[in-house]
């Protein structure tokens, strides 16, 4: 085993479900800060996060999380004690209040002192803006509030590693802003691994971006570096171009085109979304994916 100081260190990790290869030799080293995981559905993001969260075992490859080996039970216990996890489909005990549910999970996080635990539950609920509805039953909360309950439980105990699988889905803009602030604050001291479809969240939050597709890492680096890969390949035109790699009509009535320059178009300032679409391209809808070589990889 190669020693590393990275919080999450994956080397040639493979995971298959029957005949489907969810991860095909993924290697990643992640440290402090927020790492965004971008990719289309079926890219392998959730499988990767589950392995990091010790919920799923890799078939092969080396995995070390927080310096521990999750294939060993002692290592797994150590990781889970320092982990905050927001699964893709978290589930709730709908008949419990937000406070009781988070308190229940806090017990399972080995917070056995009642007074300390209750203080901590109040803190995390306040941090996600649920202090006022803490004693309402979860089934009476809105969809966004329910997701914030799960975010709150992930924050219990100020974990060293926060693994969040599409946590911002369903949050309104104000909640997302608050969520970003919370995650940013945690990321100053700890590692956050965030899977999302929302490129604006990645642009706003992440110091590091990993783009996956077809169970492979297509590219990784800083958000700015990712955006730069699209410079000179994003165009604005009055009419659509069938030859464009990706194109869509914007709210102003113009067409945004990604790929080679069509005639009569103007070069546009690239955004995170452009770079992501350029990278994933039409492969997002095609299986199996043939990953394009990374042209912007920075370690």
């Amino acid at each position, binding site marked *: 085993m190669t020693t590393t100081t990275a919080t999450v260190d994956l080397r040639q990790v493979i995971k298959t479900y029957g005949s489907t290869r969810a991860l095909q030799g993924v290697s990643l080293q992640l440290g402090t800060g927020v790492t965004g995981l971008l990719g289309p559905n079926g890219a392998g993001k959730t499988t990767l996060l*589950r392995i990091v*969260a*010790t*919920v*799923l*075992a890799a078939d092969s490859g080396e995995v070390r999380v927080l310096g521990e080996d*999750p294939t060993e*039970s*002692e290592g*797994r*216990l150590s990781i*889970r*004690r320092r*982990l905050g*996890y927001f*699964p893709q*489909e*978290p*589930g*709730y*005990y*709908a008949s419990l209040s937000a406070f*009781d549910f988070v*308190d*229940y*999970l806090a*017990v*399972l*996080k*080995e917070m*056995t002192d*009642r007074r300390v*635990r209750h203080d901590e539950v109040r803190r995390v609920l306040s941090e996600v803006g649920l202090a006022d509805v803490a004693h309402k039953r979860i089934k009476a909360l809105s969809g966004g509030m329910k997701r914030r309950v*799960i975010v709150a*439980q992930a924050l219990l105990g100020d974990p060293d590693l926060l*693994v969040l699988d599409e946590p911002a889905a369903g949050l309104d803009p104000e909640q997302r802003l608050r969520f970003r602030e919370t995650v940013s604050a945690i990321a100053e001291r700890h590692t956050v691994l965030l899977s999302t479809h929302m490129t604006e969240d990645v642009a706003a939050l992440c110091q590091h971006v990993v783009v996956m597709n077809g169970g492979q890492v297509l590219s990784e680096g800083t958000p700015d570096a990712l955006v730069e890969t699209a410079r000179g390949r994003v165009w604005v035109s009055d009419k659509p171009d069938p030859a464009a790699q990706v194109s869509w009509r914007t709210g102003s009535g113009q067409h945004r085109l990604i790929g080679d320059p069509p005639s009569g178009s103007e070069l546009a300032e690239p955004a995170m979304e452009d770079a992501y679409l350029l990278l994933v391209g039409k492969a997002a809808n095609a299986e199996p994916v043939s990953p394009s070589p990374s042209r912007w990889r920075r370690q």
Partner: protein
Amino acid sequence: MEIILLIAVFGLASWRLRPRHGSIDPASIVGPVASSPTTEWGVVVPLARAETRRVLLHPAFIVGVLLTPLMLVAATSDPESWRAVSGGVALGLVPLGWMTIIASNLVALRPSRSGTEELLAALPAPQSTRTGAMLATVVGPTVISAVFAVAALVLVGRGTTVLSGSIEPLETLAGILIVAGAVTVGVAVARWLPGGGWGIASVFVVIFLQARFLDVTTWPWNRSQGDPMRFIGFLAEGTNSGANFLEFRPAAWHLVYLAALSVLMGGLALARDGLRRNVRILIGGALAITLVAGWIQTRPMSEAQVAARVSFLLDPDEHQVCQQVDDVTYCAYQDFLVDVPDWIDRVGATLAALPTEARDSRPPLEVRQRPAIVISDSDCSPEGYLTTLTSAIASRIAVDDLWPADGDVHPPFGSDHFPCSSRDAFGFFLAVQTGAWAVGLPPAPHGANVRCVASGQARSAIALWAAAVASPDGERTLRDVTNDGSQGFPLITFADWDSPPTWGVDYAVADAGLAVDMLGLAPGDVRDVLADNWDRWTDPATTTKMLASEFGLTAPASATQMPSRTDCA
């Protein structure tokens, strides 16, 4: 039919209780973390507190709590002895046990039903800790059932009925342990068969096992009440055959057996998360204790135990306490002495209704307790008393020794009543025996249930009349006895039974009709008429037509198609 019903219920429950949210396949979850005593016990206690609230507030448990008072009332109504009440309380707690299985099962299954399995899998406390906490919730339902049991015993104790014997806590504890065991069953089923329908199915399995294999008079073994193999059932009926001194079920060992079974189920639940050393020890120990306790329970009686019980039945003089009141001797076993005042009232009232010549013409009356030849089984069907005894005892008893034709009045164990009815007959059946003694008819059956027919004999109507006069609500009781099951048959019978089992005479329905008519006359006038010629009216040759004519009543119709039975001499 039962299997189809079981499948239908299970299918419906499985569909209704299916996991509602997409969740990770539990088999793909990495597995339990390493256990350490500090980790687990530190978490188990607060977690158990939280889970106990969930179980106690679960709708299934609440339904059980609401049903329990009704069940306790039903199971302890018309009590005859504290032993019956103590066992009845245990029986009344059984439905709470069923609902506890469902409640604890569904609470244990909540992670998969709510889709939180993946979330919980990433937390330090492993499923074994959650299982341990779920098993620790046993305290809640146990305390609730104990409160119910104590309340039921207190309420029965405050009732007006005087009960023989004393409270038997070991009998009642069986019901409490059954509720406790229900928690472990629910959790074990949840861990090994993770689907809500299985919890409900397990209730049916428990009922099926108890009712079909471990109860009396059920397919396929038709176990007798005295068969000790029944003791491996969950709620094992006693073998007392109506009297405590005949009991040989080791009640304490049955409790050990139930407790060990519960621990065994708990161990099996924990084994789902790995056969760790302490779990292996738990399962091994519980299994060993279960087997030992089961084995001890099913041991046949020793020679001394058999001899003692045979002596109780065949040598009543040695074991009964006798007292004399108004020249009548009353003898009862120790446990039934509380019944003697009622006997004195009823026998005295019956004799008072008749002319003094009735006593003067007969040898001194002895009222001596002995078992009825035919009793009611758990299905309210008639069952020969000897068949309820364990074979070791029954084989040493000759029917003529236990039920000699001595001409005495013989109250049975417990009160004499309509089969499977809580209706109080106020000692009417004993009064009929007394009336029969007074008029020279055999009061009680003897031998192998030998009786005689007194159809058309005036004395039979007199005996029934005297009993009805001497008993509270006697006319209604006499009418009901007459109409209970006869339905065109010329002799009085209970529905689906033979004659009332403690009577030595098969009375004719027509003669009972005359007795009812005589109740319309002033009792003193009837007594005076009878006193004028007592020998004539008690002569077997004197007919009911003559009696009816004497009182100006309609003569009963002659019975047709009378069964060929021996006439009373």
